[in-house]
């Protein structure tokens, strides 16, 4: 069916076949989107695997591997930069490196985030859903210790 091939994919996608919302829902329940599920997702949505892979790899928050028990996101936004967030990031990396030899080495996944809107009480560290403000590098071990 040659006309099918040249049809723009946007017209072929009915509103309900929403790839992004499907992937977000999978990640919300499973913590990540396993790559081996792509064919199944594509089939269920009536789109190609390439469509699904394209969306999955485009959005920074979608992951294809399981995260640690706690996700630590360090804000790299401008207000946090002005308040020296790189020092906070280094402190977090140092803490996690120090603890990674222990048996709960996959406790923390560290990520950078560009602004969580907490600029007035920066620098900011988000652990799971908890937003911590005015975080100083020296306070990092005590802060993360609460989540182990």
């Amino acid at each position, binding site marked *: 069916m040659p006309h099918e091939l040249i049809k723009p*994919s946007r017209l072929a996608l009915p509103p309900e076949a929403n790839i992004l919302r499907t992937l*977000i829902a999978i990640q919300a329940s499973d913590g990540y989107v396993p790559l081996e599920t792509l064919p199944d997702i594509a089939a269920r949505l009536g789109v190609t695997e390439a469509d699904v892979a394209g969306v999955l790899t485009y959005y*920074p928050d*979608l992951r294809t591997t399981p995260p640690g028990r706690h996700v630590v996101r360090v804000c*790299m936004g401008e*207000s946090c*930069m002005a*308040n020296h967030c790189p020092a906070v990031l280094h402190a977090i990396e140092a803490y996690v490196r120090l603890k990674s030899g222990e048996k709960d080495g996959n406790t923390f996944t560290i990520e950078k985030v560009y602004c969580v*809107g907490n600029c007035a009480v*920066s620098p900011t560290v988000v652990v799971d859903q908890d937003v911590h403000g005015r975080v100083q590098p020296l306070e990092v071990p005590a802060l993360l210790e609460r989540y182990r």
Partner: protein
Amino acid sequence: MTIARLYLSNDTSSKAAGADRLAKLLEEPTDVQLVRTSSRGAFYLEPMIERDAPSGRVAWTNITEADLEHVLAGQGGVSIDSIPYLTRQTRVTFANFGITEPLALDEYQSRGGFKGLEAALAMAPEAIIQELKVSRLRGRGGAAFPVWSKWEAARQTDADQKYVVVNADEGDAGTYCDRMVMEGDPFRLIEGILICAHAIGAAKGYIYCRQEYPAAARVMRAAIQKADEAELLELDGRTFSIEVVLGAGSYVCGEETALLESLEGRRGIVRAKPPYPAVSGLYQRPTIVSNVLTFATLPSVLARGGAWYASLGTEGSRGTIALQIGGRVKQPGLVEVPFGMTLRQVLEEFGGGMAEGAKCKAVQVGGPLGSLFPESKLDIPICYDAFANAGAILGHGGIVVYDDSTDMVDLARHFMAFTSDESCGKCTPCRIGSVRSRELLELIQRGGAQASDLALLADLGDTMKATSLCALGGRAPYPVMTAMEHFAKEFSSKLMRQS
């Protein structure tokens, strides 16, 4: 037994400053009733607890657990009306902040809520658009496009379906007023959406909220449900449905056409314009995409009239602007003032000067794509025209102050690395230009660059400005170019010595 009514903000930043710890301690005393309000935006004073007093509210600021006994005993505290940071503001869109409980619909209504919608429903759609024309309201997301003009285009386009889409993808670092509106006064946003829907004849609304704002999404969903139960979503004979949809961390999805692509479930890639979304937007239907703050401003404009709104501000910039002060200042927080104050005035009168021991080096206005101002150029009036003339943008009203320990080459590299990470890849100038610019900045940083590399960087910047498809590529060179212009020595001192 007298019950002491205490007020404590439930805003994300208030919690990040320690509000929840205090709330937990206040669960125990039986003679305390704790009300979790929105935040006044004076975050430098938080955590802050307020109590009713005969003369109005009294506040205890920057409190720790040890201070709670004074609060409970009613000793000390300062009158809210004596805090210049708050009294000097003109609160229109943020009039309820710090006062009401976000999800208390009755409180919203008793303070004038839904009066704007009431007025709009009594008017013909054309008359509403005319009222907006009189108000001279411009979109608050960054592009500052006249609101009435978009609405007229959407109104006049025939279609089986029209949409209202709230851009709540507040991605500009240094801004948080949209988050505050959604967390703190959600019914105001709903009211604004309904006014727009009535004016253009839409039957469905979406709030595209960034994933980084889980509390905002939660409050909005709860508010939509409450409004629905109160039958406030009944519009022109049917129920207007509003859905909150989450993003997944892509900055460029704040650009309206990329947002629509993302809302349709695809990669958030920018569309070429025209057609503009007002004519062909979501699923190719006429769609109004506007920022949270724009919608939140509508109720006041309709309730008090376009002429009243236009009486505030300057010639080309009417009304108020929500500024968000951050970085190395003494008093970071949200400030709503009429357009026209200078940047220096705002930083001195509200920002309170620099943080302890810090010296001002540069001020960035308008997020990661905003231009940098050196200390000597701060006497610029805060309005669209003055900023456009200076090659700068107000953007979404974020102001970030950097101190003298800031390495400007490293900061410029940080900005360009951000753009190269976030570029959607559709147009070549942005996709390749941002990567090459970042590489050049890294080369300068390593001490491996020559003077010709600075010229190349400037040339790349000019190309990106002139030929990018959207504002991401078109604006990305500005912070870098202004850093090079105002702090030229820092760049030249890192060049390779010519032998």
